[in-house]
């Protein structure tokens, strides 16, 4: 258990509003959680990193996991869901549906999953900033 007390980021102003909003916003849109907290530079760097990784993964003909038939595919779907709207929009546009035929395409699939997992880390960081668990 954490021994660090929860403290608001910027006094009473940060107490207002839904405490999980940065977490949810950061999950849906990379960097949005930090933008909500006024951390513009961090949010921009996180958004660029995660978006670039996700888009590069698709450009390398990486696969978006869609099937939940076996356990590995299910884990892939759960990983991909970490990128929030990016995953849903990409699936809606029919991207990442080609079967993997090259090594680089396999790397692309990993880029997509890792970008999604990094997005979850970024969203949790925004939540920690919101609750005061992380100081700045």
């Amino acid at each position, binding site marked *: 258990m954490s021994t660090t007390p929860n403290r608001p980021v910027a006094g009473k102003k940060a107490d207002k509003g839904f405490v999980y909003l940065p977490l949810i916003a950061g999950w849906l849109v990379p960097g949005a959680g930090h933008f909500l907290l006024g951390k513009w530079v961090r949010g921009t760097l996180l958004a660029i990193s*995660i978006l670039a*990784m996700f888009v590069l993964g698709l450009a*390398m003909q990486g696969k978006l996991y869609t099937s939940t038939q076996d356990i590995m595919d299910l884990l892939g779907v759960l990983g991909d869901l970490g990128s929030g709207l990016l995953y849903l929009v990409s699936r809606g546009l029919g991207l990442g549906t080609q079967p993997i035929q090259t090594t680089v395409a396999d790397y692309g699939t990993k*880029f997509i999953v890792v970008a999604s997992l*990094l997005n979850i*880390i*970024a969203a949790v*960081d925004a939540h920690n900033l919101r609750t005061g668990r*992380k100081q700045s």
Partner: protein
Amino acid sequence: MHPSHFTAVLLFALFASTVFGITMRDTPQKMFRYGAYCFALFVGSVFVVSWLMFFIAR
């Protein structure tokens, strides 16, 4: 898009290190140092594992 394997490693290391640096440290200076540390570990481990695989394959 078909980058070389090493280019893919460098891109992966750059973006992952950026996120690690920002989320794992508190101040900009510490973030930069930790990000650079992670990047060096990513790329360094690639060289080590590559040479290991080279000697195993011989």
